[in-house]
């Protein structure tokens, strides 16, 4: 076993994280688009010369593998000796460049020291539009990656220090807001240069060998830590199944089959048996699957393990070709996050069978609910407003799940009602927690969210997509399922229409409203073990009705009645 220098490792890890922080901050500070600047839908990572991930700044788990896919595939497709000092690569393509989806554009900068590549630094940002059929570029109903906007394999955007303005212009004008693309891409390139300079300074100040030894130690340490956590779990095979609600377009549910194999500190996630690829855009490429898998693994095995190459080492992932988790070109992949959430669910369910009880987590809403409104502002300018709606979180042994919270591969913020009402001719009629959506149990799942949005004018178009109506969060250890999602259309005249979770471009009249209820979190343990006081508190607080309490907690209710 390699001996690590614990002191240098920690000091240099901090210094390296300082560099990723710095690049991330520059990205956030200097970018123009809301997505990067405010939603922090971006990530920064440093790699060694072999392309091994060393450290990363990350706010959204889905982006874990974003830059990594770009770097690893770059090293497979290009010879190092063909890369010149000052070259910078751009890429986004899932099939050619280890991408996540077309909106996530990565910029990769090889870092030269004494004429040799010693590191790579990369960042990735979600660009709100990269062209294609639909504004915003991704939509679950798309059926080909060619419809999802511009595809970029690894190409040099900077050659030996010279920005390729022509290429930048070409990319930008394949999107709906070229100025914003140009600004943000330039910021991505500049942020990397700053990080590269910091890496060079670090290496010249402390010696390249010492920095690289510390990096190697960090990987050794992380792998050792991951293996130790896995060795604490009993060897065996643990199976689970999770379902999507459809295939992006209306159609059959898709099954995700998972076998978790743990053997002496090695972990295999085998997705053999998973359904064939979807027609719509909910397929997942190799690297997004890796991000989803590690979102689940980190949750279950070691929530604070440093994200680097060492963490991946004990883990093998098998996803058969032609399935929703490894689709054949040119399947659409833009909305891979729907499926990613179901992958996380499958992992949670499998690990519930092997983890000590106090570390298991019941499944959550596991959705990526989208509501999109298109229309005209008062000024006559068109607007697009997209909202993601969270749901209930699964319960744990000692705690009820959080209400109305993003889970799994996403963690994006909501839009304040006041902000959106100032900007768009819409009104938030209700934004709250839905009664009787918690998964009952010894500990309860978190409550789902109601988001009810009306239009103040004629002609606004609404589209929605949410899973969780057909596949609610399943309770564990005797706990009940979380509430199912639902969608209602409220017409101005008072008529209410129940809809499937799937609305495409419905035109709203003035006074109409769309009311979405997301799924709730699942319960943990048998409901009869919940105390009367806790049941009464939930009733008093209105999270559950008396009727729900009587139905799901009859023990507690009868005990209460007996008092």
């Amino acid at each position, binding site marked *: 076993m390699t001996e690590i220098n614990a*002191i240098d490792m920690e000091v240099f890890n901090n210094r390296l994280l300082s560099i990723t922080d710095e690049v991330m901050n520059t990205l956030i*500070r200097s970018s123009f688009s809301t997505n990067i600047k405010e939603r922090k839908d971006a990530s920064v990572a440093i790699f060694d010369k072999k392309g091994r991930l060393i450290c990363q700044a990350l706010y959204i788990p889905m982006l874990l593998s974003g830059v990594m896919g770009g770097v690893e595939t770059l090293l497979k497709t290009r010879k190092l000796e063909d890369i010149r000092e000052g070259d910078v690569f751009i890429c986004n393509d899932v099939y050619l460049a280890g991408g996540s989806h077309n909106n996530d554009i990565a910029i990769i900068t090889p870092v030269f020291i004494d004429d040799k590549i010693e590191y790579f630094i990369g960042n990735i940002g979600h660009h709100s539009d990269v062209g294609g059929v639909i504004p915003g570029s991704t939509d679950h109903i798309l059926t080909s990656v060619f419809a999802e906007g511009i595809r970029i394999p690894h190409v040099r955007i900077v050659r030996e220090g010279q920005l390729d303005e022509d290429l930048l212009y070409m990319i930008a004008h394949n999107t709906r807001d070229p100025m914003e693309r140009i600004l943000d891409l330039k910021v991505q390139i500049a942020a990397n240069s700053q990080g590269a300079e910091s890496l060079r300074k670090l290496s010249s100040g402390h010696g390249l060998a010492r920095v690289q030894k510390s990096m190697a130690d960090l990987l050794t340490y992380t792998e050792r830590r991951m293996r130790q956590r896995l060795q604490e779990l009993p060897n065996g095979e643990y199976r689970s199944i999770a379902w999507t609600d459809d295939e992006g377009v209306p159609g059959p549910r898709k099954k995700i089959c998972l076998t978790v194999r743990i053997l002496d500190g090695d972990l295999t996630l085998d997705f053999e048996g998973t359904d064939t690829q979807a027609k719509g855009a909910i397929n997942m490429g190799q690297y997004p699957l890796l991000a989803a898998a590690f979102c689940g693994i980190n949750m279950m095995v070691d929530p604070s393990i440093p994200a680097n190459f060492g963490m991946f080492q004990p883990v093998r992932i098998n996803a058969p070709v032609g399935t929703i988790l490894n689709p054949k070109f040119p399947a659409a992949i833009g909305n891979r996050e729907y499926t990613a959430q179901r992958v996380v669910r499958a992992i949670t369910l499998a690990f519930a069978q092997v983890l000590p009880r106090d570390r298991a987590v019941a499944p959550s809403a596991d959705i990526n609910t989208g509501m999109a409104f298109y229309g005209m502002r008062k000024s006559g300018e068109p607007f697009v407003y997209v909202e993601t*709606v969270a749901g209930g979180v699964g319960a744990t042994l000692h705690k009820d799940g959080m209400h109305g919270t993003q889970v799994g591969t996403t963690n994006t913020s909501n839009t304040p009602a006041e902000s959106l009402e100032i900007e768009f001719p819409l009104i938030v009629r209700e934004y709250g927690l839905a009664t009787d959506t918690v998964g009952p149990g010894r500990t309860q799942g978190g409550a789902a969210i109601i988001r009810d949005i009306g239009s103040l004018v004629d002609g606004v178009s609404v589209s929605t997509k949410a899973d969780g109506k057909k596949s609610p969060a399943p309770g564990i250890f005797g706990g009940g399922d979380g509430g199912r999602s639902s969608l209602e259309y409220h017409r101005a005249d008072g008529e209410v229409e129940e809809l499937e979770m799937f609305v495409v471009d419905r035109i709203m009249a003035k006074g109409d409203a769309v009311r979405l209820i997301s799924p709730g979190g699942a319960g943990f343990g048998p409901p009869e073990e919940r105390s009367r006081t806790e049941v009464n508190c939930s009733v008093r607080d209105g999270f559950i009705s008396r009727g729900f309490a009587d139905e799901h907690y009859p023990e507690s209710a009868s005990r209460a009645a007996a008092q």
Partner: protein
Amino acid sequence: MAQKQFRVGVDVGGTFTDLSLIDEDTGEVYNFKTPSTPHDPSEAIENGLKQVIAAGVDPATIAHFGHGTTVATNMIIERKGTLTGLITTKGFRDTLEIARQQRPHLYDYSIHRPAPLVERWLRLEIAERFTADGDEIIPLDEDAVRAAAAKFREAGVAAVAVCFVHAYRFDGHEKRAGEILQQELPNVPISLSSDVQPEFREFERFSTTVMNSYLTPKMAGYLDRLMRRTQALGIRAVPHTVHSNGGLMSMDTAKAYPVRTCLSGPAAGVVGSAQVTLAAGFPNAVTFDVGGTSTDVSLILNGRGAYTPLREVAGYPVRCPMVDVHVIGAGGGSIAWVDDAGALKAGPHSAGAVPGPVGYMLGGTEPTITDANLHMGRLNPVALLNGAMPVDQAAAKGAIADIAAKIGASADETADGILRIAVANMARAIRSISVERGCDLKDFALVAFGGAGPLHATFVADEVGIPTVLVPEAPGTMCARGVLLSDVSRSFVKSHVIALSEESWGEVLKEAARLTAEAEEWLVSEGVPDQLRQYIRVIEARYIGQNFEVRVEADTDDKEAFIRAFYHVNDDVYGYHVEDRDIEIVNARVEAIGKIANPLEEPPVVTSTVEDATLGTRSVHMGDDNGGWTEAVVFDRARLPVDATISGPAIIEELTATTVLPATWTARVDNWRNIILTRKRLDA
């Protein structure tokens, strides 16, 4: 000749309450320290004031009394505020609970957002609604407000918040609901969101307003007790309280808006540092306040503390201008430990004041950053506090040796390593705040205070590339001194989100004028004389489509000049501006300032010499990168005269702090008696 007058500044900390007394004639500053009394912090203040009086100060000559307090913050952290009720617009009772629908930790689901300060059954919905344009689409259901009042009365609610959607601009319903509640619940304080913080974005405004309610009754009780105690001592000056952005508020304002005191303590430290560094010739500085459990860092830009309009207090967002202090869990008491896969960490767990570091002999058994400093000889190996507090260096060394065995390194390497890790942590925080604002640290000074700031300052400066370190006088009582240097101030704001045009610019100017009138009324009520009143007009604006606004100080009525200023701020903050995107106004803001603080006064002359100040030498480990063990000259700061210069390796000891100079640093005492440390080689 006028009678001798004194001003008193107080900082109530977790362990100690510090008092700084300045003689207005001579400029002489005296410091006092007394143990804090968390059950009623005003008791410690009284004890401290008794010390001041016992030292010969006539209480009647105390002309001004200001204090920084953690009463509000502690009430939130410990959740010991008042049973609070909320009434809100139908459809929004869960705004507090959903927050921004984000989870605090990406993968650890056992970490939850804190539960709302008002339980769900006390969050009552009322039919009422304005649109964003001010159309009253649902009138206020006054009967429902009365019914809510009845419910609150029955539940024993002692404070009520009223938070309606779009009330930042259309406050009619909130005001009416407030009147009804006041009639129905005459003894219950009511906080209106349109009054506490009239800025749009409902979650943050509601959170701030509810926190204000939650704090009001007990904060008022505390301030009343404080007032009684000071009056009983014969002090006629009415206590002022430092708000989170480093200005002072009267009793009445502090009672009405206790939420504005959440960062009271750190804010005073930043104000003090800003004055001290500006006077010393360093308008740009990084504050570096290292205490027992944490390190606070913040930026001073052009002589003013950088502020933030929004931050979290114990997980709850508070929207009001606050010093932008970044806190990390690394301080003198932070524990060094080795995890099961072999990594060495420093913090975030702390041994605190009790059991404390091993070397303090108060029962601590786990090695801390302080123990590493004792091992290295950087802290006096015999006793601290000028000899008053004996330490056990051997015990500290023993604890370090235990860690050394676990990681297979020597004890010296380990102690050095623990400190290097702590320094790397602190450095990361400093880099982070400076890069966020696009600052180049080469142009900054590090102002080190708190008990352990000067101990680590040169090492942190080396790590981040800051060329100068400033250690103010009595660095352990910087916050109390800051109180003495604070002006009366308050920010008045109104959200009005509107695209910039000739017409809207006129409206914005009118809004600003209304705010200025409001601000003037307030300054009058605070008793600030006309010639000391000052107003800063700020317009917050953004590009249309963005959600983040920048702060533009605009003393001009000319729209084009404002646009140029907006571009200029964008250049400063983001590194560029874009000319062909439309601009949107978000807030008008007026900062009202009453310039009551005395300027910093030059301290009296010390007549001793550098030789007098030399205590001897001791063996100090300056770090493997600085030559390891070296013989360092030890100085007594109190006896160092102005212009004294010292070359490292050296140690400068004083009552509450120790400054360390590796061989690459020199020190000079400036006219203000600050120690100015400079790196010898700029390439180091």
